[in-house]
């Protein structure tokens, strides 16, 4: 017997013209739906997200086909991937039929759906359909029975579920009916290659004529459902099928954690930041439409986890609703200032989002509007901190003339005294003024002198890098501070900088580029690793047990997760990871300028993190960020577990083990 099947069996070729007619109508509806959206996206400001299209396309195809972003969260990621691959194969299989019947046969008389290829085709499609149905069942159980916390279900979700389920089930029923008539007895050898179809065929009762009747009517129903699905795509959550892969194409190709540097000299600029929909970029609006409300961002958000008003998912949904309401809609009012000030810019949401939505720049953009256009602050303490930055160039309001006092008695000299240093140590505000972090800086100096590195500093010529001010939305103050620092770097011809703080490292190394500083900037963790690797620094491995807290700005913003672990292992440490670690780490609560603000809403983020550290049972939590060290120590005090847990900086651990 031949291994193939008669296409349009039973329905007849007369069905083809109306089928294409309906298809055209469905495709037209889809195109119209997206066309209408285009006007909404276009209400945003211009932004280049298309240059380098070849790389973008390759990335988009890879991320989408490999389900890379979805699989970051194995459950339900694997099921989503299973469904995606299954549904993709079914769609491709259907398309192959069209290719054969309406192109290759008509043009060249070529039929390829036969023989071994057809057997394989049958088997693959059959299993793909099975996978799609099973994963859909898992989704059904999860969404409607298990109901994970925070997952919101709307009519749209129900409709999408029902439609997909209906298409898959009718597909198998059609196959079963056809096989019952044409293969079950006539060609059992071929029927084996459609195991699910075979099963359905065996279960379907009735005479061949009745089955043919069932087949014919189901064929039309299935077709309408499938075309209905196509037409429905832009109007419901299924739009993500199209929008998310395209968003991969549009995603930011610049360095991690990039932010738009505002052109403050622009005489024509009327507004700064975004208060209204049309002050966002088109990409921001597009992003909001690509969100599938999967709540992964919300699950990762430290502010949400500790009972604050902020949920990154809600922020994106608020923006979407605002965008649909019109270009002049007030987005700050929709998101609320309370939610906006609660963000630590930890980037957990953005890192985990399967739709590649960029949350943090939107939040900062709205903060910019509040700060630059209205002179608003996140509370009196925020006003005081900004005032201190302006006058004293540090958030503590301490005279900046004392900025080098931490180094009194150490061998480190200012570049003004001795410009011949190998590397500039940019201590930052905390290591310069905060007692706990001053001690860390001193230990790092010990490490450098042991390794024979000549370190210079700027002393009172150093100013805050501007990061907290910038993340609080004060781009003007940031650029003033940054400008002064860059001038000073230029004066001394600074080429390489090592920082105590991951926030300084990211700001100096990434954001200062936009303002004209191109030197190399590393965090002390990476610097120590380099010294060890090059053999300049030798450590005695003294055993100790610890857990490691990844700071957001080292892990998610700078991609540094391996180096600290390697250094601490070389120091003799045995690490027990917290559940949230690496680029999935849980913020200490100090980022985004939050370290300078009071945390009045909900519980303390730092306490939550300390609980996670405590759960490892280790007596020490090692970090390498001044904000983290401060916040963790606060958290330890607040959680009343000073006897059980100590917070230390990596440099302190290393300095105790110099060989």
């Amino acid at each position: 017997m031949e291994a193939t099947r008669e296409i349009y069996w039973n329905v007849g070729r007369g069905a083809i013209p109306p089928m294409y007619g309906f298809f055209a109508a469905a495709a037209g509806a889809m195109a119209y739906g997206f066309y209408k959206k285009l006007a909404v996206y276009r209400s945003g400001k211009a932004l280049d997200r298309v240059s380098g299209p070849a790389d973008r396309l390759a990335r988009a195809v890879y991320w989408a086909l490999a389900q890379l972003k979805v699989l970051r969260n194995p459950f339900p990621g694997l099921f989503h991937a299973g469904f995606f691959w299954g549904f993709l194969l079914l769609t491709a299989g259907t398309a192959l039929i069209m290719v054969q019947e309406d192109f290759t046969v008509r043009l060249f008389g070529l039929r390829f759906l036969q023989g071994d290829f057809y057997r394989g085709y049958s088997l693959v499609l059959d299993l793909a359909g099975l996978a799609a149905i099973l994963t859909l069942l898992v989704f059904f159980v999860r969404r409607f029975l298990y109901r994970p916390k925070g997952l919101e279900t709307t009519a749209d979700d129900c409709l999408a579920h029902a439609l997909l389920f209906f298409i898959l089930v009718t597909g198998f029923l059609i196959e079963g009916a056809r096989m019952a008539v044409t293969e079950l007895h006539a060609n059992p050898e071929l029927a084996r290659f459609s195991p699910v179809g075979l099963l359905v065929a065996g279960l379907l009762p009735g005479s061949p004529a009745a089955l043919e009747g069932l087949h014919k009517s189901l064929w039309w129903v299935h077709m309408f459902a499938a075309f209905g699905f196509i037409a429905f795509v832009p109007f419901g959550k299924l739009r993500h099928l199209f929008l998310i892969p395209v968003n991969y194409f549009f995603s930011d190709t610049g360095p991690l954690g990039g932010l738009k540097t505002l052109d403050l000299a622009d005489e024509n600029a009327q507004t700064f930041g975004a208060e209204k929909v049309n002050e966002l970029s088109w990409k921001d609006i597009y992003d909001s439409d690509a969100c599938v409300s999967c709540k992964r961002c919300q699950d990762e958000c430290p502010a949400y986890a500790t009972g604050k008003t902020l949920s990154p998912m809600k922020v994106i949904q608020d923006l979407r609703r605002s965008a649909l309401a019109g270009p002049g809609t007030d987005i700050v009012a929709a998101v609320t200032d309370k939610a906006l000030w609660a963000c630590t810019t930890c980037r957990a949401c953005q890192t985990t989002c399967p739709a590649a939505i960029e949350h943090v720049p939107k939040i900062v953009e709205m903060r910019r509007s509040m700060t630059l256009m209205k002179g608003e602050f996140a509370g009196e303490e925020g006003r005081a901190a900004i005032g201190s930055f302006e006058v004293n160039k540090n958030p503590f309001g301490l005279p900046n003339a004392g900025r080098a006092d931490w180094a009194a008695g150490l061998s480190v000299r200012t570049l003004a005294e001795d410009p011949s240093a190998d590397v500039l140590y940019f201590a930052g505000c905390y290591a310069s003024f905060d007692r706990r972090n001053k001690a860390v800086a001193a230990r790092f100096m010990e490490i450098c002198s042991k390794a024979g590195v000549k370190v210079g500093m700027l002393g009172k010529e150093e100013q805050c890098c501007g990061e907290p001010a910038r993340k609080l939305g004060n781009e003007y103050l940031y650029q003033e501070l940054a400008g002064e620092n860059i001038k000073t770097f230029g004066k001394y011809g600074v080429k390489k900088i090592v920082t105590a703080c991951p926030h300084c490292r990211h700001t100096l190394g990434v954001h200062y580029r936009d303002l004209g500083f191109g030197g190399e900037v590393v965090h002390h963790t990476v610097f120590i690793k380099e010294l060890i690797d090059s053999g300049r620094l030798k450590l005695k491995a003294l055993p100790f047990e610890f857990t490691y807290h990844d700071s957001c700005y080292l892990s998610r913003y700078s991609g540094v997760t391996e180096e600290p672990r390697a250094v601490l292992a070389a120091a003799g440490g045995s690490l027990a990871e917290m559940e949230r670690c690496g680029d999935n780490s849980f913020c200490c609560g100090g980022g985004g300028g939050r370290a300078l603000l009071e945390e009045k809403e909900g519980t303390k983020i730092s306490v939550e993190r300390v609980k996670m550290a405590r759960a490892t049972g280790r007596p020490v939590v090692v970090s390498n960020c001044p904000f983290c060290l401060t916040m963790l120590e606060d958290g330890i005090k607040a959680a009343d577990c000073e006897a059980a847990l100590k917070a230390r900086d990596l440099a302190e651990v290393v300095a105790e083990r110099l060989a």
Partner: protein
Amino acid sequence: MKILVCIKQIPDMASKFKPNAAGSWFSEADLAFRMNEYDEYAVEEAVKLREKDPASELAVLSVGPARVVEALKKALAMGCDRAVHVPDEEAYRKDPWQIASIIAGYAKKGNFDIIFTGMQSQDRGSAQIGPLLAGMLGFSCVTTAIGFSLEGRTATAKRELEGGAKGVVKAALPAVITCQLGLNTPRYPTLPNIMKAKKKEIAVLNAAELSSEAALAGTEKFYAPVKKGTGLVLEGGDAAALAGKLIDVLKEKTTVLRG
């Protein structure tokens, strides 16, 4: 309505002060400067008044070295229309009488209806400029205002008196009002206003042409208080109040709470 606000730039009060070479005032090396806090209230109140009447005009004036231009720029960004700088590198050697006469020399020609200034400067703290200025110009004067309103040409000000008592004073314009903490919350200049301020006029006037008054009092010597090893006992009140007092003392007299 023509409004004038007089401001001073002062060093950040958390600084470590050292006498200058002559021992006559503090050395400005390593100091950070900012607008006198009370003058910020004055600017805010003046801007609020100016905003009520688009036909009015608000000028800001400062006497002092080149650095005071920064404070003038901030006042412009907060909403003053134009600035007047009276450059004087040695303004610190002038006594309040001389400074007030310089300002009066300018204000006389300006036809001002109301003049706002801080109730005192945070560095010298003489609190004399306002009353002296009012006397020289023949204006009414209200000091230490913590509330202000204007009805026609009558100003009503709430004043803070000794021991926390309050009083309400009515004064006919023209008037000098000196401003105290509690009057308002000074606005933070928005970026568009900072940009606009960059284009506003800063007129430079000659101090000698405005006044040639001689000093009535001179500053003899500037020195740190002699350290006395006296103890201090905090008594009375509940534990929280005592702890609050202790923190205040530590903040004021020591550096232990400064990191």
